[in-house]
């Protein structure tokens, strides 16, 4: 090398050039080229040896992970059963399609193509595009489930051209009674990015077709219901085509969860609420088993499981009957007269003689102020005070023993309390007393506060579940705790140790409400030998000057309430019905009557319901579907999409429920003048029956 530089490159003297020097140069340079070639050859051999020996392990693994595709088989979810073993949530074998956004080269085009192939609705296609656009790339997005075999096959044959599209056979969640259990059971859906991160990036959560519980019991019992995923090892080509199965491990189905709920009763109650907005709770008095926790209107959990469609969401949001709110747990209402029997028990405990009479002269003077009753009841004892719902009696004796004692009794009956139930959220409600008022508003307790609270108005707030529990405790004299899940334990509720005459007296008075000269005589059960006992309630939400309580704007109408138990002398079942803005207790007790009728004689109950449903335009589920179709046709293109995360939806619903519960507080500042007609009823909101010419036939005529 040095030689060339000195000779040709760096010397100042021009070199002599002839054939011999050129041949010399050629030979030297050809040796150089040969050397370079040999060097490259050695380099290549060394490089290859390095790849094949030193890095063999690494590349062997990578080659294996190329070749073998391990895919999880989503476990079949455990069933949710009712008390008799009938499924409230089961699984259905189906064909489904997901897309993985990361692997779609042209998402919109591909979704359109799939949409055409499967004949999806335009709104659904728009929802999927939106979902794909915002979701984290690896998260599968469900396109459709419940496909028939032809659709599935049509898609499968085109698969080689459809990168990122995953059709598969699997199982989807199925709720046989649909909207009747929407709030109770909840629904399932694909895990979102947060849930995926929370579970340490559990690969199961991003397996196409796998869904987790999003609300209600599905969410509460997620870990029990989940099961163990199976796995499949397959040999795949680069384009994802499966060459052969290498190994398959079956999944293990999740554990079933058995509820205390009576499925048919739940369905019946939900359907019986009809066009109204309300809830029905029925409990077993001996065990506290919740037989029914219906809240209507509701959503169809079947249609939520492939994501909440924007049209569906908009429809549910715009309904003033708040279909997304579980009113059993998150509806708070002034209990009105329904807590009067419990207050009577407080009076008895304070030593008041039930035979002691007062004169209701259309009201009663307390201190230096006259407080009106809804009617002039004349001479009133305890029985008559309950049966006729005389307010004066409660003004008088609540004032006499002091409301603190009444409030203490209410608290021990579960008012203002939460119960140990597997639910996502339950509201406390309020039992007002002087300390509470001082703390919350900084104002002292006035006589009118006692007056309001003594008849379940003012700041008093209770949920339907609490009303049902207090009814059960009243009926049995035992601390019955509600329970939702069947375990092998037999609850043995502790007794309050009330005197048996006291309990018998209250039972008789509540029976007289229905079977005697009471306010709910039309609630009598059409069943021989079973007598219903109950108490009506009408809760005002605005003052008399704003609304008469049963007509005008729906939002201003009175709530209709009814608490009950049966049979009156040996209580087995207890419960509560609350109809929001039903216009008075007349909207509530017919529902209680029919639900209890169904419990004792299903055929009789169903006959009554069918007559109603013909007028209403179908079952709750059918009406929901018709409503959806009408809404989609009208508003389909103009809706705003739902929040990204399901949690946001339900946080919002809960916040609004808290706000709604404050409605009645606004008038608690002063005495609440009771309605003249305690058992009136109104009509459901105009939006409830989306079909022309349909009027509410739910409630009995006011009497």
């Amino acid at each position, binding site marked *: 090398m040095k030689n*060339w*530089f000195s000779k*040709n*490159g*760096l010397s100042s003297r*021009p*070199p002599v*050039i*002839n*054939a011999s*020097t*050129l*041949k*010399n*140069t*050629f*030979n030297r*340079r*050809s040796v150089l*080229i*040969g050397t370079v*070639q*040999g060097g*490259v*050859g050695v380099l*290549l*051999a060394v*490089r*290859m*040896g390095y*790849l*094949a*020996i030193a*890095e*063999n392990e*690494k*590349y*062997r693994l*990578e*080659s*294996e992970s*190329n*070749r073998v595709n391990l895919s999880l088989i989503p476990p079949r979810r455990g069933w949710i059963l009712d008390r008799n073993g009938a499924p409230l949530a089961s699984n259905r074998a189906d064909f489904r399609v997901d897309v993985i956004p990361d692997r779609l080269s042209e998402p919109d085009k591909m979704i359109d193509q799939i949409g055409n192939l499967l004949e999806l609705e335009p709104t659904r296609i728009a929802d999927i595009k939106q979902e794909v656009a915002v979701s984290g790339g690896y998260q599968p997005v469900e396109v459709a489930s419940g496909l028939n075999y032809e659709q599935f096959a049509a898609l499968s044959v085109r698969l080689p051209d459809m990168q990122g599209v995953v059709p598969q056979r699997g199982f989807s969640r199925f709720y046989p009674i649909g909207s009747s259990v929407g709030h109770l059971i909840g629904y399932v859906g694909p895990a979102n990015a947060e849930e995926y991160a929370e579970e340490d990036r559990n690969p199961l959560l991003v397996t196409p077709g796998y869904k987790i519980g999003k609300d209600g019991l599905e969410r509460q019992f997620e870990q029990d219901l989940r099961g163990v995923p199976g796995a499949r090892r397959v*040999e*795949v*080509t*680069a*384009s994802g085509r499966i*060459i052969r199965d290498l190994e398959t491990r079956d999944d293990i189905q999740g554990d079933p969860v058995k509820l205390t709920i009576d499925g048919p009763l739940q369905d019946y109650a939900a359907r019986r609420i009809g066009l109204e907005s309300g809830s029905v709770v029925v409990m077993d008095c001996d065990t506290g088993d919740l037989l029914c926790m219906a809240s209507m209107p509701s959503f169809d959990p079947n249609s939520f499981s492939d994501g909440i469609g924007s049209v569906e969401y908009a429809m549910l949001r715009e309904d003033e009957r708040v279909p997304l709110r579980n009113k059993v747990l998150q509806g708070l209402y002034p209990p009105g007269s329904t807590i009067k029997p419990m207050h009577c028990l407080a009076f008895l405990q304070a030593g008041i003689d039930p035979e002691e009479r007062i004169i209701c002269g259309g009201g009663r003077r307390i201190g230096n102020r006259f407080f009106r009753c809804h009617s002039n009841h004349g001479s009133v004892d305890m029985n008559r005070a309950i049966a006729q719902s005389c307010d004066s009696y409660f003004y008088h004796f609540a004032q006499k023993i002091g409301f603190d004692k009444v409030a203490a009794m209410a608290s021990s009956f579960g008012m203002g309390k939460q119960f140990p139930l597997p639910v996502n959220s339950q509201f406390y409600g309020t039992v007002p007393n002087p300390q509470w008022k001082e703390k919350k508003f900084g104002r002292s307790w006035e006589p009118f506060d006692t007056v309001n609270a003594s008849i379940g108005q003012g700041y008093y707030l209770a949920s339907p579940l609490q009303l049902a529990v207090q009814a059960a405790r009243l009926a049995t004299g035992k601390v019955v705790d509600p329970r939702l899940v069947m375990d092998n334990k037999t609850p043995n509720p502790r007794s309050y140790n009330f005197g048996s005459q006291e309990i018998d007296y209250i039972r008789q008075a509540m029976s007289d409400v229905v079977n005697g000269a009471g306010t709910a005589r039309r609630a009598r059960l059409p069943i021989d030998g079973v007598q219903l006992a109950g108490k009506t309630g009408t809760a005002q939400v605005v003052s008399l000057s704003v609304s008469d309580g049963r007509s005008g704007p729906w939002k201003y109408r009175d709530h209709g309430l009814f608490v009950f138990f049966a049979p009156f002398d040996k209580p087995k079942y207890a419960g509560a019905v609350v109809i929001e803005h039903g216009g008075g207790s007349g909207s509530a007790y017919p529902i209680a009557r029919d639900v209890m009728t169904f419990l004792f004689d299903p055929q009789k109950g169903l006959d009554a319901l069918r007559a109603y449903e013909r007028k209403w335009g179908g079952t709750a589920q059918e009406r929901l579907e018709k409503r959806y179709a009408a809404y989609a046709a009208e508003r389909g293109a103009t809706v705003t999409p739902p929040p990204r995360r399901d949690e946001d939806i339900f946080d919002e619903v809960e916040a609004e429920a808290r706000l709604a519960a404050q409605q009645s507080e606004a008038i608690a500042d002063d005495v609440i003048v009771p309605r003249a007609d305690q058992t009136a009823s109104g009509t459901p909101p105009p939006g409830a029956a989306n079909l022309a010419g349909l009027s509410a036939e739910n409630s009995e005529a006011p009497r």
Partner: protein
Amino acid sequence: MNTQRASVIPYSIARQPWGMLIPLFLLVAFGAAVLFSAAGGSMQPYASSHVIRFGVAMVIALIITALPRELVRFLTYPVYIVVFVMLLGVEVVGALRGGSQRWLDLGFMNLQPSELMKPVIVVTLALFYSSLPLSMVTNWRALIVPGALIALPVSLVLMQPDLGTSLAIVFGGGVVMLLAGLPMRWFVGAGLSAVAAAPLLFYFGLKDYQQRRILTMFDSEADALGDGYHIAQSKIAIGSGGIFGKGFNNGSQSHLQYLPEPHTDFVFATMAEEWGLIGGLFVLAVFSLILRWGMKVARESQDRFSSLLAAGMSATIFFYVAVNLMMVMGMAPVVGIPLPFMSHGGSSMLTNMICIGALMMVNRWNQNVPRGGFAREA
């Protein structure tokens, strides 16, 4: 060569360079076996046509072998012009059809003129420098003609765009010029200015996809599903083969289509996966035998034309082999250069067999000259 009189083997057979030909036949047969596997264990569509093409190209090579020196010298410039016109034709046809293309459809076959240009540039430059007055060799004016001879076809090939073939032409021509005795400082200077110009060329001269290919060479795993995919999969194939390979017809990388182009550019990876390091060393050994023989032919040549011609031809083969193998092992960007005698593809087979034919032709010329010529003592 020196046993011809004592042998019973006919002279015309005995004088063939069997030291090169037998390894070559073995390599082609081995290539056919690899292609058999790449087709999923079938002679169709690769292996059988590979062997047939080799047969046809061998006949062409033998015809070239028989060409007399004067005829070659006479035909060199006209052939250069014909191939150059064909290159122009490719551009014209491509422009008319809208879109670039590399092929010229001759009716009975698709011809890639840029491939032909690789051996043709070597012969042309060899002829030019052998007829150039010796005193002119170091004169810079003597650079104008060969510079134009290289630059014209290269610029056409670059327009196709085909970076790999352009480099091959430049390399073949460059090696001839180096051996022709041009001052070393010119090459050093050209090398330095190429290094200096590389960033400019990279950012302004290359298309997007070409830039990405070069970038991914430095970090192929960073983009394992995008542009680095080819190289990453190729390295997986080679590395997972280990010393003895996964066995004939057992390569998962090629059979399950993870390896791109398993029968053309990445045929070596396909081979290495199934035959391992042993197979790879065999291929390298065969190429080094062929190339060593080529350089030996060049050194034994009696005249300047022959020696430049032979050295240029073997350099062209070397360029194919080196760039292809460096590419499949992740040491060079993906430039689309096939592996001689193993990759499935008619044009590259033809080009490489023309080179082999030219080497055998020079080898025959060497044998016709009395031994112990004046250049032997160097």
